[in-house]
C-alpha cells in the first residue's frame, strides 16, 4: 500500500527508505498476530526480500524482532537466541529460493527490547552483533560487509511500566534508553509513562521524546561507538550471552529447526515458563519492582486519560464504504482472481498484491483470498 501510494504521488520506489516489520516467526512464538501456517507465511516474507532487493533497494524488507518475544516474557538470553535463530531461518529461506545472500542480507534489520538490567541489555546487543557477523561470514559465506552488519532498532520495555506510581516510569524508561544507546542501537523508541493504562496522552509522549533528546544532545553518550567495549564485566557478560544463545541454537536444531520447534510449542513454552518465573520472583520479593512490591505508597495514581472520539471510528467506516462503492468492480475482482492464482502456484506474490492494492482491494480482502488458499494456523495450546 505504501508503494502504491508512492506510485500515485509520482515518487520513485528507488528513493523510498523505511522498514516493514514482516517478521512472521516471532508471531507464532510471541506476538500472536498470525493468520496463515508457517510455510506459506515464510514464502510471503521471502517474496518481499526478492521484490524489495530489486525494486526498493533502500528499503529494510524485514525487522527481525526480539521485542515481542521479550514482552511476552522471555529472558534477555532467550530474546537474543530466538531472534537470531529466526534471522538465520529467514536467510536460509532466502538462499533456498535462489537469492544471492549479498543481494538481500544487507536489507535485513533487527528490533530489540531494552529492559531493566542495564549491563545485561548492553551485553545482549553486543552479543547479537558478534554472532550475526560471525555466522553471516563463516556459515552463510556472505562477502559483502554490509551483510555482516546487524542494524537494529530498540524500544524500551512496555512490560516493565507500572500502573503504580506511574511517573516513576519516566526514570525507568530513561535507564532502559541509556542501555540501548550504550549498546549501539541505530534507532530508539522510548515509551510514555502512562502506557500501563492507555495509548499515551500528549504530555506523556512529549516527556518520552525529551528523554531521548537529553540522551542525544545533553549527555554525550552518543558521541562514541561501543563505549563499554573492554570493560571486564560487560565483555564477560557478552561472552555469557553468546554461549547461552548458541546453547539454544543447538536445542532448536535438535528439534528439527525453527518451524518444527514452533509446531512443538518449544518457544512458546520457554517464554511462558520465563514469564511465570518472573512474576513469581516479584511475588516472592526476590526481584524488586519499585512501587509494586517495595517502596509502595497508598494513593490513587492520576493519569490524564486520552480520549478517542467515536467520530474517528465512524469517519474510517465512511471512507471504507466510499472506496468500496467508487472502485472499479471489474478491475477489483480481476486483480483478486489473479492474486488467488499466483498464491496457488509459486511465483512471487508481490506484483499481484500490488495490483490488488492498485484496484483498491482492502487488506481484509487480500487476506481473505490468501486464507482460502493457504488455510489458517492453529497454535498449540499451552501455558
Amino acid at each position, binding site marked *: 500500500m505504501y508503494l502504491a501510494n508512492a506510485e500515485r504521488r509520482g515518487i520513485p520506489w528507488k528513493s523510498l527508505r523505511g522498514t516493514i516489520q514482516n517478521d512472521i516467526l516471532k508471531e507464532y512464538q510471541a506476538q500472536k498476530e498470525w493468520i496463515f501456517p508457517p510455510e506459506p507465511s515464510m514464502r510471503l516474507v521471502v517474496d518481499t526480500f526478492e521484490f524489495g532487493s530489486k525494486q526498493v533497494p533502500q528499503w529494510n524488507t524485514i525487522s527481525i524482532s526480539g521485542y515481542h518475544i521479550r514482552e511476552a516474557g522471555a529472558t534477555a538470553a532467550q530474546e537474543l537466541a530466538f531472534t537470531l535463530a529466526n534471522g538465520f531461518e529467514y536467510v536460509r529461506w532466502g538462499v533456498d529460493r535462489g537469492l544471492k545472500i549479498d543481494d538481500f542480507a544487507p536489507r535485513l534489520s533487527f528490533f530489540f527490547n531494552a529492559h531493566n538490567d542495564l549491563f545485561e541489555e548492553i551485553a545482549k546487543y553486543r552479543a547479537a552483533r558478534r554472532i550475526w557477523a560471525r555466522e553471516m561470514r563463516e556459515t552463510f559465506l556472505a562477502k559483502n560487509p554490509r551483510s555482516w552488519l546487524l542494524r537494529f532498532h530498540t524500544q524500551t520495555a512496555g512490560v516493565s511500566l507500572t500502573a503504580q506510581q506511574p511517573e516513576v516510569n519516566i526514570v525507568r524508561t530513561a535507564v532502559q534508553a541509556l542501555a540501548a544507546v550504550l549498546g549501539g542501537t541505530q534507532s530508539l523508541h522510548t515509551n510514555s509513562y502512562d502506557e500501563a493504562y492507555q495509548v499515551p496522552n500528549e504530555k506523556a509522549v512529549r516527556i518520552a521524546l525529551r528523554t531521548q533528546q537529553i540522551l542525544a544532545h545533553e549527555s554525550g553518550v552518543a558521541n562514541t561507538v561501543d563505549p563499554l567495549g573492554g570493560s571486564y564485566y560487560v565483555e564477560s557478560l557478552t561472552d555469557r550471552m553468546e554461549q547461552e544463545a548458541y546453547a539454544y541454537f543447538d536445542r532448536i536444531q535438535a528439534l528439527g529447526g525453527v518451524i518444527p520447534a514452533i509446531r512443538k510449542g518449544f518457544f512458546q513454552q520457554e517464554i511462558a515458563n520465563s514469564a*511465570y518465573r518472573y512474576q513469581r520472583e516479584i511475588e516472592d520479593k526476590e526481584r524488586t519492582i519499585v512501587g509494586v512490591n517495595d517502596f509502595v505508597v497508598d494513593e490513587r495514581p492520576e493519569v490524564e*486519560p486520552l480520549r478517542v472520539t467515536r467520530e474517528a471510528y465512524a469517519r474510517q467506516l465512511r471512507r471504507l464504504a466510499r472506496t468500496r462503492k467508487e472502485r472499479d468492480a471489474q478491475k477489483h475482482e480481476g486483480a483478486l482472481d489473479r492474486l488467488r492464482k499466483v498464491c496457488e502456484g509459486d511465483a512471487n506474490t508481490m506484483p499481484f498484491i500490488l495490483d490488488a492494492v492498485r484496484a483498491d482491494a482492502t487488506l481484509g480482502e487480500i487476506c481473505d483470498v490468501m486464507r482460502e488458499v493457504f488455510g489458517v494456523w492453529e497454535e498449540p495450546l499451552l*501455558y
Partner: protein
Amino acid sequence: MAKKIRVLIAKPGLDGHDRGAKVVARALRDAGMEVIYTGLRQSPEDIVEAAIQEDVDAIGLSSLSGAHMALFPDVVKLLKKRGAGDIVVVGGGIIPDEDVAKLKRAGVRAVFGPGTPLAEIVEYFRSSGT
C-alpha cells in the same frame, strides 16, 4: 476431599497479549485448581460453550485490546441464556476505572488490573468457586 475448583481462562477478541492470561492460568493450576485455557481469538459463544462443556465453576477473561466493554458482558448474558448463570465471571487486563464499575453492574464479579498480585487472584477464585 473437596471437589477441585475448575476454571476456564479465555482470551476473547482479537488481541494477542496472552502473557497475563497464561501466568494466571499457571498460578491457579499451581494452587491446585483445574484450569482449561482456550487460547486466543475466542468469541463469547466459543467461551460459553467451552465453559458449559467443561463444567467449570468460574471463567477468567483477559483482554488488552479495549474491547472488554463489548465482550465481557456478552459472556455473562450468554451464560444466563444457557442456564449457566451460576458460573462466576471475572475479568483482567487494561481496564479503566469507569469501565470497571460498568462491568460489575453487567455481572462481571471482579476485575483485576495491572500489578494485581497472583495471590489475590488465586484467593478470589478459591473463595468464589466453592
